[in-house]
């Protein structure tokens, strides 16, 4: 059939479905706002109150003052509150402290390892004779350590930590089966460590994002199978009336990653070009259905919580969830534009990539509405600063990604460093920054100890933020030039290689700043765990009213 007819027909069908969805949502009253659900993250007396455990007494007071100034009394303070919230939260936090500490510990370790490997790989791209004498040092393996350590070691562990910590809080019930969760975490990390050892010896499944051999993948899948039942049980035994939107994202993402990985790793099932379509279906979904929803769920909790103000539209956040679930799952084919795969599949993926603008706009409008007139609060709260930076980068990288999927743009960017820069904007600028913010919030509650050196948090933020911008800007521009040179038949190929060198050097500069920020972060976590550092008066763990329920260490 003519492709124009197909696109017209599919546009027709799509708009019909959209119309019915709209009519259904009107009938269900989805356009009536739901402040009760949006306010369900606050316990009694918390609305309008600053909550950022990464701050010490004086800074907390400054944040509180800034928030009080921005509150408009009429609307903000009429929010739902639950008198029993704090007791439940106390039990929830106690039940998760151990597993969360384990996940965060592993995550930070992998972050340092993975970023050292990443910087080494980056240097090798412009110093090709640097570290070549042994097989395990070669670029192709170094890059794989980096990818596996940061995506599965750092992001996956940190997100599991956040999910395990938040879910019982949101469900107002202790975590069910914490030992199973820890067992799962141990299995996953055994898998990651064995996989990285295997890569060093040259044992890899050979597909991007899916390098972990299936034999080792069994550990990863078994790990998720240990974690899913406790997650579902915690939801099933919940005391809260609502399932807050963060939990929607989190529960779904845990199910998705387990199934994604299982389908992708079925031994012997995939072959030839079909394997390539599966590879990129997985490759994009591990970002779209695991890293992204888990990080978005975190923003939907921490951002309103820090400023003591519910998200501006709860329904918009749910709309964002379902459109993300539907559209994101089908975008993977755009990685094979121009490749030897069925044309209809690529077209489908391009259409869905453009549709991804819907959930991104839903998220951005919602966050802008929540933060409107309050942007300056980021000056006082490190958690908020990381969250806002991450949220903004989510919008930027998603919109960029949608346009990158268009054939005309993709033709230039497809096989270049432009794509690498884009991937880092998403995985670092967005996801990793959100994870940092969340860890700064969580860890004082988990360890009952405050961050010893608040200035290090600032140093971490600025090094990481400037680092990723230096990484992203030049590499994007260099990648674009590289793509144009490759398309110009009158230029020899080697010109496209040579012209990227200065941009690759800038990438190493940005990467060094990022690594420096991670070393600061890891040092800070270590000092906190060992309870070194200036001994302050207890931990900054409480609201003025709620100190008996969230006890401070040493008080």
């Amino acid at each position, binding site marked *: 059939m003519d492709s124009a007819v197909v696109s017209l027909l599919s546009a027709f069908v799509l708009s019909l479905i959209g119309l019915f969805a709209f009519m259904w949502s009107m009938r*269900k009253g989805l356009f009536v706002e739901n402040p009760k659900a949006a306010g369900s993250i606050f316990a009694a007396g918390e609305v309008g109150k600053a909550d950022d455990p990464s701050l010490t007494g004086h800074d907390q007071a400054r944040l509180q003052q800034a928030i009080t100034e921005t509150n408009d009394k009429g609307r903000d303070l009429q929010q739902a509150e639950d008198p029993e919230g704090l007791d439940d939260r106390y039990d929830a936090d106690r039940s998760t402290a151990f597993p969360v500490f384990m996940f965060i510990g592993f995550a930070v370790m992998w972050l340092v390892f993975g970023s050292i490997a990443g910087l080494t790989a980056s240097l090798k791209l412009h110093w090709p004779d640097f570290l070549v004498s042994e097989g395990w040092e070669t670029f*192709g393996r170094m*890059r794989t350590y980096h990818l596996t350590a940061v995506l599965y070691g750092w992001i996956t562990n940190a997100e599991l930590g956040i999910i395990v910590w938040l879910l019982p809080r949101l469900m107002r019930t202790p975590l069910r089966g914490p030992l199973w969760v820890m067992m799962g975490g141990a299995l996953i990390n055994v898998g990651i460590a064995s996989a990285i050892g295997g890569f060093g010896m040259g044992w890899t499944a050979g597909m991007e994002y899916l390098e972990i051999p299936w034999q080792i993948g069994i550990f990863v899948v078994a790990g998720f199978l240990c974690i899913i039942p406790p997650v579902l049980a915690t939801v099933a035994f919940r005391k809260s009336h609502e399932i807050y939107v963060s939990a929607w994202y989190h529960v779904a993402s845990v*199910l998705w990653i387990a199934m994604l990985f299982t389908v992708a790793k079925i031994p012997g099932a*995939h*072959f030839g070009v079909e394997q390539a379509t599966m590879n990129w279906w997985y490759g994009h979904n591990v970002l779209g259905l695991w890293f992204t929803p888990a990080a978005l769920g975190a923003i939907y909790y921490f951002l309103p919580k820090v400023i003591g103000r519910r998200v501006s539209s709860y329904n918009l956040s749910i709309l964002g969830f379902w459109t993300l*679930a539907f559209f994101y799952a089908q975008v993977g084919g755009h990685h094979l534009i121009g490749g030897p795969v069925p044309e209809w599949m690529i077209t489908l993926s391009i259409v869905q990539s453009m549709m991804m603008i819907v959930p991104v706009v839903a998220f951005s409008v919602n966050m802008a509405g929540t933060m409107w007139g309050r942007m300056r609060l980021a000056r006082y709260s490190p958690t908020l600063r990381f969250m806002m930076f991450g949220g903004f980068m989510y919008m930027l990288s998603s919109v960029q990604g949608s346009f990158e999927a268009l054939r005309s743009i993709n033709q230039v960017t497809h096989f270049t460093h432009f794509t690498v820069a884009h991937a880092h904007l998403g995985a670092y600028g967005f996801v990793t920054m959100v994870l940092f913010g969340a860890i700064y919030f969580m860890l004082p509650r988990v360890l009952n100890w405050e961050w010893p050196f608040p200035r290090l948090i600032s140093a971490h933020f600025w090094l990481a933020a400037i680092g990723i911008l230096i990484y992203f800007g030049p590499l994007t521009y260099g990648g674009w030039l590289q793509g144009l040179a490759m*398309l110009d038949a009158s230029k020899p190929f080697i010109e496209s290689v*040579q012209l990227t060198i200065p941009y690759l050097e800038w990438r190493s500069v940005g990467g060094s700043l990022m690594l420096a920020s991670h070393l600061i972060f890891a040092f800070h976590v270590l000092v906190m765990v060992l309870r070194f550092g200036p001994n302050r008066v207890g931990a900054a763990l409480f609201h003025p009213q709620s100190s008996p329920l969230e006890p401070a260490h040493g008080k």
Partner: protein
Amino acid sequence: MENEPKLVTGAMVTFSIAVVALVLIPYFQIRDVPAPEGLKPYTSAELRGREVYIANGCVYCHTQQPRDPSFGPDAKRGWGRAAVAGDYVYDRPHLLGSMRTGPDLFNIGVRQPSADWQLGHLFQPRGYVKESTMPSFPFLFEVKDKADKDEVVVHLPPDVQPQGKVVVAKPEVLDLVKYLQALKRNYPVLPPEPK
């Protein structure tokens, strides 16, 4: 809209739609594509060489998917005709790649059939292409005073030849070169179906 069965069912439904569209339908569509007549299965030495290619991550800088002339000058660069699904029948895992830090290799066996060139280039790419950023792979070779009689000595350009020594290829790099030499998709295939 507020209970867990809806959440779990909804998440499964959207996920399943994607699996059907991006995994299952392509699976059935591509499963019965026959191998083109001119395409031979890899020999065992070539398969071992392919493992070396995979182990060292060549795929991160080299694609194996020349594109149609409407997409770019791949053919003009000597990378071959646009690839079709049948070309990959024997490829497990696929090595399509996503990055062209270096050139496409789907037809490197046609473009550069010389084993001497391949071996020397792997030992030190900058002995052949001064501006190359490809890593050198000295760990696939041995530098010794004198080669045994059944060993393959690599003939190198004078400026990369170690003084007074010989460079000998290890078996894995010999296999790798056999694989590279076998990358020849210059047999005829049916043109894609008209749209």
